């Protein structure tokens, strides 16, 4: 039996396609199905051309194939509105759901911070927060694991071309979800998130600023070491994750200035914001697969 977990991707848009390209290189996860709702969609045609089975009748259309194709993990790259139903239907069949939408019905997952505990607990639905959250929360956590953070603030600046209509129509969801995860996963007592969309040409590479206000004087050496170690952790799955400046210390303020360049699989390299989501989503499923092979967790039982 192959150690690879077989996967279905729901939503053949930019995110789904980029994810598929990354997954084709994975040692731990094998893409089997791409699910859409429009048989004419470019995304489904691309997936078919890459040798993936496609289904244009939504999640309902693949439910009958889940057991026979041994699908163990699903990635939802659709929208928050339909995610809950998608997740319920697939969870019932024992499929682990990695949620790339802002629905956040399961716990937030930021791989270098809390993925291991989710994998060990076999969480059946994990949410990947937001692009800004994936890029910044590791830095908040890098500070808060050294000393308490009273307040964490992140500013994500993304190129106009990399922000899709879903995010634009509900930009409040980005600020709320990210701020919540800065607290819950980053460990800040209070979180704040700001997103700026910049239309410059050529498009700018995603950049992120993280400000933490620590309780008491920041321990400069320990925080600097922790930040560098955390950057290295993120670089394992997003090689273009770079510390541009900082950490800078000013009173009890600790600031870190980051840049996130993507791999340029399907989305251009400037769209590090989309790349870090797909890379984090895939990393999450890979960790589940590793824990299965290690014997730490057992996948939900399936009758023959």
């Amino acid at each position, binding site marked *: 039996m192959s150690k690879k977990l077989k996967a279905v991707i729901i939503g053949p848009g930019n995110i789904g396609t980029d994810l598929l390209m990354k997954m084709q290189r994975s040692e731990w996860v094998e893409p089997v199905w791409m699910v859409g709702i429009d048989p004419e969609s470019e995304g489904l045609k691309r997936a078919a051309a890459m040798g993936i089975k496609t289904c244009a009748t939504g999640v309902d259309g693949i439910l009958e194939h889940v057991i026979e194709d041994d699908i163990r993990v699903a990635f939802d790259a659709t929208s928050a509105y339909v995610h809950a139903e998608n997740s319920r239907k697939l969870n019932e069949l024992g499929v682990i759901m990695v949620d790339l939408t802002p629905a956040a019905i399961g716990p937030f997952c930021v791989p270098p911070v809390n993925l291991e505990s989710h994998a060990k607990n076999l969480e059946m639905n994990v949410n990947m927060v937001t692009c800004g959250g994936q890029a910044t929360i590791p830095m908040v956590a890098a500070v808060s694991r050294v000393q308490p953070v009273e307040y964490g*603030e992140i500013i994500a600046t993304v190129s106009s071309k990399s922000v899709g209509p879903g995010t634009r129509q509900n930009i*409040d969801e980005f600020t709320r979800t990210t701020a919540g995860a800065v607290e819950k996963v980053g460990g800040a007592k209070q979180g704040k998130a700001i997103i700026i969309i910049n239309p410059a040409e050529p498009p700018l590479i995603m950049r992120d600023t993280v400000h933490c206000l620590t309780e008491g004087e920041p321990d400069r050496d320990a925080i600097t070491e922790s930040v560098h170690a955390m950057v290295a952790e993120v670089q394992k799955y997003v090689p273009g994750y770079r510390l541009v400046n900082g950490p800078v210390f000013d009173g009890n303020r600790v600031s870190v200035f980051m840049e996130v360049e993507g791999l340029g699989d399907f989305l251009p390299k400037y769209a590090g914001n989309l790349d870090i989501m797909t890379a984090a989503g895939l990393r999450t499923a890979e960790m589940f697969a590793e824990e299965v092979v290690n014997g730490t967790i057992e996948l939900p039982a399936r009758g023959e």
Partner: protein
Amino acid sequence: MNLQGKSVKLHDMSLRDGMHAKRHQISVDEMLSIACAMDEAGMPLIEVTHGDGLGGSSVNYGFPAHTDEEYLGAVIPKMKQAKVSALLLPGIGTVDHLKMAKELGVSTIRVATHCTEADVSQQHITIAREMDMDTVGFLMMAHMASPEKIVEQAQLMVSYGANCIYCTDSAGYMLPDEVTTKISALRDALPAEIELGFHGHHNMAMGVANSLAAIEAGCARIDGSVAGLGAGAGNTPLEVLCAVLNRMGCDTGIDLYKIMDVAEDLITPMMDQPIRVDRDALTLGYAGVYSSFLLFAQRAEKKYGVSARDILVELGKRGTVGGQEDMIEDLALTMAKAAGKI
């Protein structure tokens, strides 16, 4: 130019854009005394918010002396005739802030986006309109897009429910001809019942001239601030504009001498620095850079030994937009490293 017989609604920014120049530290007492004096002088509309709008309180933009709730809650009940507006930048503030402002009695909400990104304002404009607010779509850094693009973005905001569209010269970059072209294009394209407005900065000393061009081209509302208290070299100084409009026979409904007194006796004495076209403010206008970057660039100059002018010029080259204050320290660090200063 003939503005004889026209009338225009002036909208004061000193208690919102002026917050930038005061590092968001205006006290509630100062706000109250200024707002009451402006109300008494006949100012029809006064904006009260953190400089970066509702929810702007942050490390990035500065923590204010008081919350938006405290300022709005203090000022609104004291107004006899003036209405109070609030600014909201999607991506910074949310619909929750908007609802709070409405509950406190804010009558005009101005939803501000970069001039090419109007579609992020849909949820906020739609809800403000549903709550029956005077709803303004505020297109910032309007010098960075063509008239056609500005019209297209304005039409989006109108389709969401905005009843007024602003062409906002956040960098104080525009010259009067550009104002004429853009306002005329908006006036030609939008239905007559949609009002137009212009928000200027005085970085090239064009605040008054640009405002006159805007009125001539069809603007019904003009932003400015008494004594010019605002970001960069300030906004269009309203007492000056008022005097000019009086001479031209354009009605503002404002008592000129009273508003001159507010400028001289209340606002000028509380300025932390003279609000004028100094070297760095002029650079903002010349390089087309967001006006509230001024004090941040000057602080970065002090801290890292890189000239504020060089920082601002580079920010202009990189096409930075409103809200990217975090880029200033980042860029100053990079420039200081390159120069071997750190």
